[in-house]
């Protein structure tokens, strides 16, 4: 546990040392702010739902940008050799890296509290859906972060890691949105694809619903990709 926190702390510090953290925060705040302003007109519901629906797409690209360097950079710099000869397990390394990405994500999502404050100032927002929406975004981000760590474990090239993570994210969102609409896909396959579609799993959170099934989806997905990342890291020893 302690090793995991140590790794996470170093990783967060490294992230904020580089300009990438601020660029990503800026991009996120800008994107979310623009969507908010477009919908911020008198007579509309004082709700964050449109913002959340847009933000969940932003994360497809932003989280891989946060996570691409997590392991790739260790491979490229050779620091992984030092790390893997210290008394710390691969699982702790991977979990620490992932935790750092999730912590960054929390900071990122915290910027959404600003539009919420604006809503409070001008209207009377319903806090239930705001809370569940943020919770859902965190779960989506945690899964994307696990995917990014996994992608980062495959290569020492950060660009490749970024592309691989975006590819997987797109497969879980765009592809699983369009593919079931094809006449070639049978009803059973369609059901599987609907279930695996990440945005469908998120939709209820944005509406203000908390469903255990959605939790199961995000948690198992996250654990699965983290486990795969640990196995990839371990396999480096054997290659």
């Amino acid at each position, binding site marked *: 546990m*302690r*090793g995991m926190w*140590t*790794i996470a702390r*170093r990783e967060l*510090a*490294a992230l904020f*040392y*580089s300009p990438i953290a601020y660029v990503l925060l800026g991009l996120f705040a800008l994107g979310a702010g623009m969507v908010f302003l477009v919908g911020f007109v008198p007579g509309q519901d004082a709700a964050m739902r449109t913002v959340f629906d847009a933000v969940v797409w932003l994360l497809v690209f932003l989280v891989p940008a946060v996570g691409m360097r997590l392991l790739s950079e260790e491979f490229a*710099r*050779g*620091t*992984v*050799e*030092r*790390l*893997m*000869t*210290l*008394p*710390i397990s691969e699982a702790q390394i991977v979990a620490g890296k992932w935790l750092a990405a999730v912590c960054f994500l929390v900071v990122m999502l915290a910027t959404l509290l600003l539009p919420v404050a604006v809503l409070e100032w001008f209207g009377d927002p319903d806090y239930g859906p705001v809370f569940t929406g943020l919770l859902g975004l965190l779960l989506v981000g945690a899964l994307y972060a696990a995917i990014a760590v996994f992608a980062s474990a495959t290569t020492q090239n950060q660009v490749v890691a970024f592309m691989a993570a975006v590819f997987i994210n797109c497969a879980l969102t765009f592809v699983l949105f369009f593919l079931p609409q094809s006449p070639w896909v049978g009803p059973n396959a369609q059901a599987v694809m609907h279930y695996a579609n990440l945005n469908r799993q998120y939709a209820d959170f944005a509406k203000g619903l908390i469903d255990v099934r959605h939790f199961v989806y995000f948690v198992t997905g996250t654990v699965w990709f983290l486990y795969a990342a640990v196995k990839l890291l371990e396999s480096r*020893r*054997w290659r």
Partner: protein
Amino acid sequence: MIHAEQLTKWYGPTLAVDDVSFTVEAGSVVGFLGPNGAGKSTTIRMLTGYLPPTSGKATLAGHDLLTDPFAARRRLGYLPESTPLYPEMRVVEYLHFVGRLQGMSRQERRQRIGVVVEECGLEKVVRRTIGRLSKGNRQRCGLASTLLHDPPVLVLDEPTSGLDPRQMSQVRDLVRGMKGRRTVLLSSHLLPEVQRVCDRAVIIANGKVVADGTLDELREQAVQTAPSGGWGPVLVEVRGGVDEVKAVLRGVPAVAEFDAAEADEAGWVDAWLVPEGGADVRADAAAMLSASSLLVREIRREAPTLEEFFIRVTDAGRGDGDRDGGLVPEATSPGEIIAKGGG
């Protein structure tokens, strides 16, 4: 303390390390010597648990690197080749980071960081960002991080590569100072480095151990296995004409070959005799010279040098006569050995 038992490593179809066994006793500083690409780093990676061997076994302080890795790693300070560090961290932050991963408490870390910073001479740069340090200071920072948890075993992979001579010397002094306190395995492709720092050397070539012993033992082995059949040429310094000297030396028995250089300004002549079958011809040469009334300044026997031995065993290990990774300048004729002042 460090124990390699028939370590073998295949990378796919390539045999990188072939049945390597050696032991490093507690408190000794042992050089792990070999040309580039001989399998040094691969062996070291197996000894530190970074890579598992294809077959064989490595133990550190009695702990197997595969079955009991954490216990072994806690007793190990390992500096990988080219000293990987995090350039965005400050020296003191990096040391705290490594200390935390070694499971040290805050108090322990503070105390030990003070010690290693002083030991490695990092006082002036401890608040600096690692990316802005000189290569020498980076090396020291890496070394400090390996010493942090006061490990009984230290494995350093080419710790002086890329340093200037002064920095090299500082790192070597630091390592030599650990003799008796820590068990050190230092890999290097530089024989002079091992000669300065280590008591013992394990020489590896083409993935195999080709020599293993104390430096004195290796020198002895160098004499015994010399292609000349034993001792090298006898060097004589006398005052006189070159022809006169040659005339006298011609009379020395059991000499396969001899020659003399031109006299220097003061009239001293360097001459050398290559004895037949490695015999000792010093006494005969001295007798002949004193009978001739030439003034003799020196009669010295050249031992086959460790350098020669090193080149010989590592070339034999390669088996193909390919000498691209030359270790030391090669001395081919007796004259060159004399010019180098070797011995």
